[in-house]
């Protein structure tokens, strides 16, 4: 059986700058110009103070693993060939912001909660780079 193609992000127009930047290996998130809070994923208005003044901000790409799992069986069809792979929620250095990602660049069994990681871009196809995270350089 041919594995189905990897699902690509279904991009919402207001999030397009994030994906455009990722294609250039730049990791940007939003920041509210009024309340100063960081925002991820991208929104049309600040989810904290409801201000329209949301601006793009170059994030450090540094994060810690909040939680993770190694997928060993029963993966979605397009990911069966990737097993074992690591799904994680990471907390970005910019406070209060979490994202789902994959941890790459190490053995799955070496991932731990609260370990420091850094962003790395993986090419999904000609249109998309997916931001993933790897153990931070010492």
């Amino acid at each position, binding site marked *: 059986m041919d594995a189905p193609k*990897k*699902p*690509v*992000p*279904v*991009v*919402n127009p207001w*999030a397009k700058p994030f994906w455009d930047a990722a294609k250039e290996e730049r990791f940007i998130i939003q920041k509210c110009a009024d309340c100063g809070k960081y925002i991820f*994923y991208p929104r049309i208005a600040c989810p904290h103070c409801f201000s329209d003044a949301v601006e793009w901000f170059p994030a450090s790409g540094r994060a810690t693993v*909040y*939680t*993770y*799992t*190694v*997928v*060993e*069986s*029963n*993966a*979605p*069809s*397009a*990911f069966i060939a*990737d097993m074992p*792979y690591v*799904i*994680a*929620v990471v907390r970005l250095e910019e406070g209060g912001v*979490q*994202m*789902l*990602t*994959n941890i790459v660049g190490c053995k799955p069994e070496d991932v731990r*909660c609260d370990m420091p990681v850094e962003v790395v871009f993986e090419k*999904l196809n000609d249109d*998309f780079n*997916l931001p993933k995270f790897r153990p931070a350089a010492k």
Partner: protein
Amino acid sequence: MSKLKGKVAIVGIGEVPTGRFPETAAIYHGMASAKMAIKDAGIDKDEIDYVMPTGALYSPAFNTELVTCRIAEELGLKNVKKNCQIFAGGSSSTCALEIAAALIYSGAASMILFVHADKLGTGVTAQGAIDLFSTAGISAEWEVPYGQHYSAVTALSTMRYMYETGCTDEHMAAVCVSNRRWAQLNPNAFFRKPLTIEEVVKSKMLSTPLRAKQSNMLFDGGAAFIVTSAERARDLVEKPVYLLGEGGVVTHFVYSQEPDVSRFGWAKAGRMAFEESGLTVADMDLAEIYDSYPIFQIIGFEELGFCRRGEGGEIFLRGDTWPGGRIPCTTNGGMLSQGHTGAGGSVAILVETVRQLMGKAGERQVPNARFAVETAVGGTYMDAQVSILGTEIP
């Protein structure tokens, strides 16, 4: 706080066995359950003036039949004013109960039939179900591209919970064993053979630390209940089951946006419900906690206040939640043992809560059960819904 305490009651319940019935039309599970609930309430079918089918997932075409009044027509319900779907994923039952209560209390409806039917056990393939649940309720932009799916969601919460509390695989397995003890006494449950901790912790790894026997399985099934005013309820049945309190918290759509994946909103939702009821966790004779996987049952149990955080596993392990135990928990066996039927997973838990309070739970009846807390949650654990039910109005 709402004005609904003690104003409405559930007067009838119906449920068909959960299982694999490839030859049975999905609609039958709903029709048969609704018919049973109408008989159980002792009402004339034409007293039903409002039908609330909840959502079915296995087929959009089947869901459309539910939306377009098929249950009302098949059962010949002649006085239905509205047939309107109430769907909040796994929270549908508890959300619908509150909406039904508000409609009854306002006078907009007088006798409401809520009904569920789905065919996820035989209407889709096993891999089809995994694929369905790698997109349903999962963000197509921020999570689907990373291989997210419900086993992984659960594993992520379990991992962080175990990291923070020191709970073990055995503690998680204990929830499965507790639920199975109840399911052994439940003729509508699919899994009824005894289960041991060892079997659970040695079963196949899905997504670390979640194993196969800590995962629910999808089946066909259906259930229904009937809601009316407290006054009418007292004329109809010996033990109306009153809605005494409700609470709810919507926390997220995208799982990564949940700031605390090992607590969610249960503590707040529980406080709201208990405050409205005027009761405390110590008054509860039953803890009918939504499972789907062991971690969510443990979190719900702890955050509602049945024990301190991190102690739940030990309580499930030593048998306090089992038949005959101090605090009977999820007495139908939950989705882990009765089986998961989509939105019906929590409908089954609500129906079981009513069944126990009415004293109709047969072999697994908890003696003299007067007050119960029941919970429901939808999507990737996107909300926390809590109801307090009882046969008396405190």
